[in-house]
């Protein structure tokens, strides 16, 4: 994972992680919302994303690393 990819790529990557979540879950804006839950949800989403990349990485490893 690079830390210095160009700005539009970074924005796109971030939105890619979070848009599905934003669209899929209903906003409980009128209910009591505990402050700080937003960051927690972000963390959960990012963890899920990383979980996905884990399988992808493993696939690549098998292709290049472990095979050789």
């Amino acid at each position, binding site marked *: *994972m690079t*830390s210095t990819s160009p*700005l539009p790529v*970074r*924005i796109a990557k*971030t939105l890619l992680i*979070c848009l599905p*979540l*934003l669209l899929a*879950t*209903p*906003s*409980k*804006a009128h*209910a009591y*919302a*505990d*402050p*700080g*839950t*937003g*960051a*927690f*949800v*972000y*963390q*959960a*989403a*990012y*963890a899920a994303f*990383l*979980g996905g*990349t*884990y399988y992808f*990485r493993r696939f690549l490893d098998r292709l290049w690393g472990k095979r050789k």
Partner: protein
Amino acid sequence: MTVAHDPAPSTPRSFRDPAGTLIEHHGRILRVVYPQAAADLESFLETAAAREGMESGKLVRSVRIPASEFPEGSADYVVEHERIPFASYPYEWPPEMLHAAGELTIELARRALADGFGLKDATPYNVLFRGSEPVFVDVLSFERRDPLDASWMPYAQFVRTFLLPLLAARHFGMPLDRVLAGARDGLEPETVYRWAGAFQRLRPPFLNLVSIPTWLKGRESAAMYRPQPSSSAEKAQFVLEGLLKNCARHLKALAPPVSDSTWSGYLDHKSLYSAEQLAQKEGFVAEALALARPHTVLDVGANEGHFSSLAAKQGASVVAIDSDPAVVGSIWRRAKREHADILPLVVDLTRPTPAIGWRNQECAAFLDRARGRFDMVVMLAVLHHVLVTERIPIQQVLELASELTREYVLIEFVAPDDPMFRRIVRGREGLYSHMTQAWFEAAAAERFDPVRTKRIDGLNRWLYLFRRRGAPNS
């Protein structure tokens, strides 16, 4: 309870921790660990991560002591901690120090992860500074983790207490005390969202740390807080490593920039003293230090920390305070570079940090921590600011100095005809024209005996080394 009365009571705030409580017992720092947490702590202290941490000084040295040494009866597992000489709180740190504390937190979390332990809270109150070095002191923050658990619960707290205050400091110039003194748990993304401009909200770091959490607010379900096991331990470790690396990246992006423009207060030195005059001042300070041989020094209005450095080189432990965070940040950078025993804090002596927290007892006031703790208090090129800008009566300033020091006070007196004095007076000379050298010496004579005096050639400034009357003979 047989706790010796201490002028700086430490941490009754450990009442929140479900795993144990911190006690000060006759000057020793002891942690009583409750039975359900003892096994975890024992295992943690034996991990390679903990050993390396304690050896390098990054993790507070902790040793189990036999329960018999601690006579309070029911305690089974008691650990003694290395004592950090001067406690300081995040709202007293410049952004550079908060950043260093954040880096240390992530570093230890990653290291402990490899040994099967997770960090259960990520707040700057877990960190104290030994001189300029951050030390992680809350060993009970580490707990044995479920190998299949891929979530890091304290992420949001890390964002609120480290990342967002650093972001506010960097992008809005907001001093940390404004953000951290009022709220124990830091800054909410929603708050920062309101401050940010429309385009700012769409760019990193705002996008990830501020905007998206704000947009996602209210979309959580109770299910999210329940541990969601991963399919394999390896995957869980990969995910957690990734999360922590992400935090490290954010930290790096929010590192306080090195500011060259630390000239607030530099005017005092750079423009007002010629090289020869500065050398005279330095010579006097060196002489005073050699005479007094202080173990501990409080440098008030330390500015660039030049004289703190002199004291540290002479072997003293220095606490350097100044009200300007930029300047305190540069003292810290320099101290870190030179491995100097200087703890720089953002404290205004005329409006010092109050006691904060539950019942105003969790975090001690600066003066309570400082009283009687220093062999020498240094007040160079600062007295006139206190007398003129803050209009504190001279007797009160000297009284405070005599409370803070155990023995010596090194003070620079600036007369009303000095150019800097005239500048800060802003035309109201009449109010201050009585502040002559004779007037100052008379006020000081009430509490102090002069040991050495010197006038800086060509300036209306005098340096004094005073000894507090009633100080024990060394």
